């Protein structure tokens, strides 16, 4: 296992959000966390990358407990990660090219000439060729997610976290983004952890699916088994979301 959460507890604003989350994320696979809104899925994701520290429990990345390390060591661990945020979190003062080139320039791992070759290639892969000069404010929701994905992929991370990557997109665009994530996973082979509500869309692209409810992981299994689960809470959640999906379609 590359990532392990062990009894993670977190209280935010006086409310217990995570109440002992225990989860193993398999290496090189896409694991999707589903669950009702406000259950702390994004909070859990932020624990994995060390943006939030747990009140109790451990977050272990490749054998290192994030709760026991200092800021410098945490930054070293974060070099393995990238994250695609719900809002894409592009820097609005930079155009798309500079956004994607930003981590490469900051980490000084490539000469500017190489960056000028590599970034357009990455933009082309996510379907944003010749869009490098545009600023985030000029992009549609789907384009922002693509640019965010290009920025996440540009450093060749081992682990990518996807925080509701299709929120706010129409069904066609959501489908396109899911396909893109799957294609990029096949190309780069990263470990993906995705938080999503998109049922049943997430099942074909996920290797594993877990459900967070009442601050705990109540079920986790391979994607095809998860759809056939006998757990009544999971079944209800899937059927309700399936119904919503059909209604939207």
């Amino acid at each position: 296992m590359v990532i392990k959460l062990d009894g993670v507890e977190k209280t935010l604003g006086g409310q217990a959000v995570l109440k002992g989350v225990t989860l193993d994320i398999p290496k090189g696979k896409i694991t999707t966390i589903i669950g009702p809104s406000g259950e702390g899925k994004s909070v859990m994701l932020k624990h994995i990358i060390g943006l939030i520290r747990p009140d109790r429990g451990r977050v272990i990345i490749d054998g290192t407990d994030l709760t026991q390390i200092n800021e410098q060591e945490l930054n070293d661990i974060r070099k393995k990660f990238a994250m695609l945020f719900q809002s894409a979190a592009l820097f609005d003062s930079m155009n798309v090219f500079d956004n994607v080139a930003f981590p490469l320039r900051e980490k000084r791992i490539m000469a500017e000439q190489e960056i000028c070759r590599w970034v357009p290639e990455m933009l082309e892969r996510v379907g944003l060729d010749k869009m490098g000069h545009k600023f985030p404010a000029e992009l549609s929701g789907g384009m922002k997610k693509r640019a965010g994905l290009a920025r996440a992929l540009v450093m060749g991370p081992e682990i990518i976290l996807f925080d509701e990557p299709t929120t706010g997109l129409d069904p066609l665009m959501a489908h396109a983004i899911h396909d893109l994530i799957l294609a990029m996973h096949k190309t780069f082979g990263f470990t993906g952890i995705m938080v999503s509500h998109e049922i049943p869309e997430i099942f074909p692209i996920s290797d594993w699916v877990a459900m967070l409810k009442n601050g705990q992981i109540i079920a986790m299994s391979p994607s095809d088994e998860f759809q056939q689960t006998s757990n009544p809470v999971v079944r209800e959640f899937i059927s309700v979301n399936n119904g919503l999906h059909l209604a939207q379609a």
Partner: protein
Amino acid sequence: MIFLQHIGKRTLFLIEEMGAMFVFLIRTFGWLFRPPVRIAQIIKQMHFVGFKSSFVVILTALFTGMVLALQGYYSLRKFGSEGLLGSAVAISMIRELGPVLASLMVTARAGSAMTAEIGIMRITEQIDALETMAINSLQYLITPKVVASLLSVPLLVAMFDVVGIWGGYLVGVKLLGVSGGSYWSSIESAVEWKDVYGGILKSVSFGLIISWVCCYKGYYTRMSAEGLGKATTESVVLAAVLILVWDYFLTSVLM
């Protein structure tokens, strides 16, 4: 009982907030001296804090100097001391009005923008994005603004002093007929190095207060548009009050 609880809760909140502000300042200073030194970012911030504030500072300085000369002239004339107008304007400018008014103008123009910019970056998860890329947000975002303020505010204050003294000259000499020679010679004889030194010391410390308070308020803004508006207002009010309070203490030490 409820009233006492409210006071206690408010007091605890204020103590917590002050502690968080000091921790923020110490952490920022910790990152200030670590490589890489972001020269381009510092220059960009100096352009924003310094150059772009110069017009409003010049305008404020000009009219402050002019009104000071006007008030000073009629007060000094009662004692037949119009010749001391230059020294009255210059000392008021260099010791007090220059550092305080220029800093208040920078707070209103650049400080509020700092809070809004950082706050929007917080709300739209751009700060989290920096952290996930293993880039320390304090070092990348805050330290260039602190350095730029430490360097720009004293320069703006110097500009304020010079323009203010010339504003006083325009009104005192050109409009009210005070002798130009006595205006400048009274400045030369009255202004001492310690006045200039005190003004510089004040302006550097005010620059720190502006960047510290305004960056802190933006960095820890609440995750809503209303929260950002509140943070911007609070940053301007708190920075302005701290400038005036700190000015009193610094003046009492420097006198």
